[in-house]
């Protein structure tokens, strides 16, 4: 099993009364709550955390895209990936990803991903999400009923832009280009591995399996609730007569490791509560624009949605006991986490486990502790899982000796500026 360090880059300084005083953390979140100086701090701390994960031997480091969102400060994950490409050595740089329908023209994604692949020496994983309703239909104004069609057309254009050597014309419904001929081109041929984050839509399972891409479910609600979605995907893989290779799938899991189970609660409870009660405080009207899900998917999940709305109406704050009992977070001593993670991975049949070790308001010291304990005490014990399978959805970087490292900075002595000072 491969283990990836995932970062959402949440804003850590939302006030205690955020959920009472504000209607949403996303889309129309109060801009006066953002302090750019704290932003400076957060970006730099978070990049350090991702770089540290590379040093500790995580297989991948993951960034993602959100807009107008106080728990995800990466409108452009590609900027973060570019920063990471320079100072990390071995981890895959997993961009999960670029919401294809939002880029105009979508060749922009083909270009920037090709740049990242060259810059990183072929370490890029290209994530192609449709994007959430909040990001795509509300923040970026996409017509909900057209979104998936536009996404698929963008996908076709990007794949052709990567794989066709000649200059070609693209006559799409949403994009028309007379001369498609991107430059640079990716190191990984025919193209970087494609991972598709999904949220349980019937069409996405079918589409991902048909294209032989990797499907990942980026849920905030843990492995128990994730079973249902992953089962839908695996049923579809089986229906298409394909091998149920665990590396066809990824899953996001919150993890909190400490010396003991009791200490884990002491260390992490307040930060988890911050995440679930403030960061996920999304106005329900933004969660699912009419047409964002196809009517087929709506039909398939109507009863579940109906029951969920009833449960939401019942509401209430979530606490540590819920997180643990329902498996939102795997928390405890290394032994506890090891055992639970292994069970979860087997139940989900997931070869790419993305772990979220920074969540909510967790400060850098605690992230460091969690990351270190996980990397040293948990990771080595679960890596053997699924070793009998070949991972066809993995990066093909340049051989290590051919990868160029940044030169150390040539600091000029004080007062004798090398850069053309007078």
């Amino acid at each position, binding site marked *: 099993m491969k283990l990836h360090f995932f970062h959402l880059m949440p804003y850590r300084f939302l006030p205690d009364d955020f959920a009472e005083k504000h209607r949403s953390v996303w889309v129309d979140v109060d801009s006066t709550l953002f302090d750019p100086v704290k932003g400076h701090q957060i970006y730099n701390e978070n990049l350090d955390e991702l770089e540290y994960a590379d040093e500790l031997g995580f297989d991948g480091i993951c960034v993602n895209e959100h807009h107008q969102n106080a728990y995800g400060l990466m409108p452009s994950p590609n900027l973060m990936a570019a920063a990471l490409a320079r100072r990390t050595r071995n981890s895959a740089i997993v961009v999960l990803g670029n919401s294809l329908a939002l880029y105009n023209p979508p060749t922009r994604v083909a270009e920037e991903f090709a740049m990242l692949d060259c810059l990183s020496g072929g370490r890029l994983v290209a994530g192609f999400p449709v994007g959430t309703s909040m990001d795509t239909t509300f923040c970026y104004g996409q017509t*909900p009923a057209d979104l998936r069609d536009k996404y698929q057309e963008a996908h076709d254009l990007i794949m052709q832009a990567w794989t066709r050597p000649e200059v070609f014309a693209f006559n799409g419904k949403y994009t028309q280009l007379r001369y498609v001929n991107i430059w640079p081109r990716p190191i990984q041929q025919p193209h970087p591995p494609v991972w598709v984050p999904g949220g349980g839509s019937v069409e996405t399972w079918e589409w991902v399996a048909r294209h032989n891409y990797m499907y990942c479910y980026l849920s905030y609600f843990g492995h128990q609730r994730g079973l249902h979605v992953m089962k839908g995907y695996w049923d579809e893989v089986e229906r298409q007569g394909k091998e149920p290779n665990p590396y066809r799938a990824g899953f996001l899991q919150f993890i909190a490791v400490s010396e003991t189970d009791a200490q884990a609660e002491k260390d992490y409870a307040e930060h988890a509560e911050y995440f679930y009660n403030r960061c996920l405080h999304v106005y329900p009207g933004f969660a699912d*624009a009419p047409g964002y899900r196809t009517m087929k998917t709506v039909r398939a999940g109507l009863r579940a949605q*109906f029951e969920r709305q009833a449960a939401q109406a019942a509401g209430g704050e979530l606490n540590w006991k819920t997180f643990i009992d329902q498996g939102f977070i795997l928390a405890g001593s290394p032994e506890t986490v090891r055992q639970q993670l292994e069970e979860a991975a087997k139940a989900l049949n997931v070869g790419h486990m993305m772990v979220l070790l920074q969540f909510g308001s967790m400060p850098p010291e605690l992230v460091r502790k969690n990351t270190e304990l996980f990397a040293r005490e948990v990771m080595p014990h679960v890596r053997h899982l699924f070793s009998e399978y070949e991972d066809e959805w993995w990066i093909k970087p340049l051989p290590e000796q051919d990868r160029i490292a940044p030169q150390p900075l040539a600091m000029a002595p004080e007062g004798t500026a090398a850069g053309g000072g007078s």
Partner: protein
Amino acid sequence: MESRTLSLRDGMFKTHVEVGGDGEPLLFLHGSGGLRRGGYLDDLAATFTLYAPEHPGFGASEGIEHIDDIIDLALYYHDLMDELGLESAHIVGHSLGGMLAAELAAICPHRVRRLVLANPVGLWRDDEPVLDFFTLSPQQLLPYIVHDTDAEAVKEAFAPPETAEEQMDAMYQRLQSFSAAGKFLWPIPDKGLKRRIHRIQSPTLILWGESDRLVSPSYAEDFRTLIQDSQVVIMRECAHMPMLEKREEFVSLVSEFLNDGS
């Protein structure tokens, strides 16, 4: 009233139409919530030959995937009029249907005899933005679209579904209607009507409920200025749903205006 199903363009569209009555042809174009059955349709059919179709993607009508924008939809309605054998007709459009009726009349002015726009969308003012009703639940939306939530007519028309099955069905219908409506209204219901509206030649009645909080009555004056032969009537104690809130007044205003020309 009689329900008919028509097939257009070799089966690309399956269109459900309510037809009834006798008299001059009247095409009623419904709003984003779908075609609301109700006494007002029967009342109109007492004086006119009424055609009340469901737009593609709404109710039982199919083919929304072949429609990209409001112009496609307006041209589809010209095909439907051909299929119904209507050289021309009166057109009454409500809300989204009002926007559509105005487009239809601008594209082919000679096919529209007299035009009624009831609380139409289609224009935009920064000082009075049209409500983003897509983000509201039915319960949240109601006070924006009716003048008095306790009025008998309102309680009858908007009675919440009782069983869980009925609630799920209503949820599905609403998602389906709004998904289709989004093709014409998302994210801002201004799709260029202002560049075409000057072509409307039909005598036009602009009806508006004074308490409409979905699309403010202040838009009435904008429509009046842009349509050559037009007049405004503001309805008292009424909001966005005049045919349900003030059925008799709505029917008589519409009937009198349409009969005025004959």
